[in-house]
């Protein structure tokens, strides 16, 4: 293999691939990055047997071929090179890299042992093209409530599924739940995508990318953004039927300015560290206020109040961190917060006619 590429392209591709390359593995070649010529381009790939990522970059190819080299080393080496052309040459399983005055030889492993990258049958799978900005928003709004408890694998992913003609995303960790409507769909989809995969896809989305293509089949999903692809397994199992948990209506409905809500939550949170984040929200319809109260037995206590539209009085205890998380992903200047008594789920949503996002937080038993 002999070719030349630009340092910027190569470095970007190697950084993305080295994030996926596995560090803890039985099979040593999995901690390597695969470099392979593909007609007039260079393919950079890595896999940890959960996710595989491939990047195609433009290259001037003199002689086709392939090699695998340790991910960390080559990524760090190339990223420290100056901008400009980088020459790659493979001789006897050694990769010679030359750029300006820098040259190095990296001992590689022949690419024969590198796992075959999974393929997906485009004709029998379900495809979506999603606006990159919408995709980013939808994923970041749901991924934060995915669980990281490995004992319940189905909850460690985001559930992409079709329901009444739309594609929905949902995720829950048992204490909170989010649901987002993304696009309209005619197909029947039900797939749990690992949260780690989605995080990786979010990282690969640079600002110049406008569309994300998704391809589902029964056991895998592939994302394509520009010249990068991420293929991942799906989580095996049934996602719980979460819809019945979203209350249709609530006793108390509070409409409040988001910036105010964020501020009082943050202040109350300061005094809630000792009690595991527990804060008590009191809605008062007479004063038209929402107050948050928190106590730290050693340090003191706090009550923060903000004006709000309140339909009926009520009180509920929540984890301030969950509340802050929810507020950080809600869009729009005003927020609707509704709850019924101390035990039913609380619903946070944006105030707008066609709201496509709900964020549910379970109260703490007080």
């Amino acid at each position, binding site marked *: 293999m002999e070719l030349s590429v630009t340092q910027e392209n190569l470095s970007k591709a190697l950084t993305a691939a080295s994030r996926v390359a596995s560090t803890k593995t*039985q099979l040593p070649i999995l901690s390597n990055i695969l470099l392979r010529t593909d007609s007039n381009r260079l393919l950079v790939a890595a896999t940890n047997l959960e996710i595989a990522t491939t990047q195609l970059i433009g290259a001037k190819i003199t002689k086709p071929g392939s090699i695998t080299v340790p991910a960390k080393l080559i990524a760090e080496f190339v990223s420290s090179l100056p901008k400009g052309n980088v020459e790659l040459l493979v001789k006897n399983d050694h990769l010679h890299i030359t750029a300006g005055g820098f040259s190095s030889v990296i001992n590689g492993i022949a690419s024969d042992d590198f796992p075959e990258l999974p393929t997906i049958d485009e004709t029998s799978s379900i495809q979506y093209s999603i606006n990159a900005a919408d995709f980013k928003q939808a994923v970041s709004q749901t991924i934060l409530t995915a669980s990281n408890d490995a004992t319940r694998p189905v909850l460690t992913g985001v559930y992409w599924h079709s329901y009444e003609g739309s594609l929905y995303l949902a995720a829950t960790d048992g204490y909170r739940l989010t649901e987002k409507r993304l696009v309209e769909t005619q197909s029947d989809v039900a797939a749990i995508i690992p949260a780690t995969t989605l995080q990786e896809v979010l990282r690969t989305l640079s600002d110049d990318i406008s569309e994300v293509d998704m391809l589902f089949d029964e056991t895998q999903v592939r994302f394509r953004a520009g010249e990068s692809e991420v293929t991942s397994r799906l989580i095996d199992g049934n996602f719980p039927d979460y819809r019945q948990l979203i209350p249709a209506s609530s006793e108390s409905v509070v409409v409040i300015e988001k910036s105010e809500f964020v501020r009082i939550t943050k202040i109350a949170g300061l005094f809630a560290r000792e009690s595991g984040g527990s804060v008590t929200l009191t809605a008062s319809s007479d004063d038209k206020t929402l107050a948050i109260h928190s106590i730290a037995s050693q340090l003191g206590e706090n009550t923060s109040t903000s004006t709000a539209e309140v339909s009926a009085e009520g009180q509920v205890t929540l984890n301030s961190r969950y509340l802050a998380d929810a507020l950080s992903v809600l869009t729009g200047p005003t927020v609707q917060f509704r709850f019924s008594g101390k035990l039913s789920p609380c619903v946070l949503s944006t105030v707008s006619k066609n709201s496509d996002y709900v964020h549910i937080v379970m109260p703490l038993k007080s």
Partner: protein
Amino acid sequence: MRLHCVDKSLLYLTYARKTLLKLWKTCEYRIVERNKTLGKTPNITHRGIEGYVHNSLWQSVLGEIELSVSHATFITWFQNTELVEVTDEKVTIAVPNIFAIRQFEVKFNDQVKEVLAKNGMHPAKIAYTVRTQGKKTVVSRETTTQTASDSVDELIAPRPKPRTSASQLSPSSGLNPRYNFDNFIVGSSNDLAYTACQAVAQYPGVKYNPLFLYGGVGLGKTHLMQAVGNEIVKNQPDARILYISSETFVKEFMDSIRFKKKGFSDKYRNVDVLIIDDMQFIAGKEKTQEEFFHTFNVLHQNNKQIIISSDKPPKSIPTLTERLRSRFEMGMSIDIQMPDFETRCAILEAKAALSGVELNHETAEYLANNIKTNIRELEGALNQLLAYAEMRGIEPDITTAEGLVGNVRHSRPQHLTSKQIIDKTAKYFQLTTPEMCSSRRDKHIVTPRQIAMYLLRSELHLSFPKIAGELGRKDHTTAIHSVEKIEKSIKLDFTIREQVAEIKEKLYA
């Protein structure tokens, strides 16, 4: 359990497919018959005969492939594969993930085909599919609703208000409900430990704090400690109990340092009962010992119960810091000893009864007589006997047991000589053989010499005059005295008991 054994033994046989089918059918018939007599409904297998035959065939395929690829390759790609469907034209193999599918199709297909052919299968096509847990990922909406509605209540439930931030971190106690006081068999060797544990379970944090249990492997330390935990949960369902091995403690502590994780100390300091198994592994880990020391103090100060087990008493754990040692000794330290003959018999009969088999007294006595050191080994022998009898459709009697116990005790060499015993004993005490056999009566030589005599008697059954001769003594009464002295010391002195046990271990290693 018994089914499992049958399955396993089937796996090891590399008979032709037909023979396997036949054999399995007879087993199945016998099990059905046996269950009928026991009044159980037949519950053979969820996969049926085909599943077992496929599986055993696949195991032999894997066995062959394992030899021809590297270990890492085998673990990564071939572990957790399964033969799911066999027809004349097509063989379907389930693999763990999508990556494996391509890998098999492109790289291992020829190899798999070849080995299948060796095992008498010539499919025209081999198909690969991703292994699922019996459910399809893409399901129609109706089924999702039905299956999921049961679990929905527990999915999101109002969560109890955290007493501290720590209770979020320790949702499970780590206790195994299988271990309780009712199924612990008490004998003279462990009744003190049993009584103390019951007292602790009744009044946690009040009596015997900390409770320190020590003894060799497979004598029931874990069982007793878990029984205490389970008993406390039964009495006070909201008690926070944490059962861990000291290795987990060390690992979590190191993780908390390495990844700057918070909540480590809270997790351990906010429990009502802390049970730590195999404490000896903390030895030599200075920082962890210090952390444990502080945890210990906090818990003890607040009258929280601490239960610790180890294979040695605190005194004998090397490199245990002084302050921890003294703390371990301040509560109650109890030694669990080898069960005596009667207890071993009782254990065997109780375990057999649990499996629904009545073991006659003669057989129990035979097993108890031949396996003396370890209850786990004892149970293993019993399980082997029951499975064997079940498979052959015979009663588990003494003749069968005699045939099998040889297998269990394969580790005992027949050709132990008196010279080996004397040499090993001398080496253990860093003496030379001539010193041992000399007429010197320094204390540091006398005890080893007596131990050697005891071992010659207990392991080789030599006569007393012969023992005396071996160690250069003229008078056989010296040997009698020595053997008696060590026999007595073993009962009273832990050090001697341990030394003898360790030398024995070395002899049979």
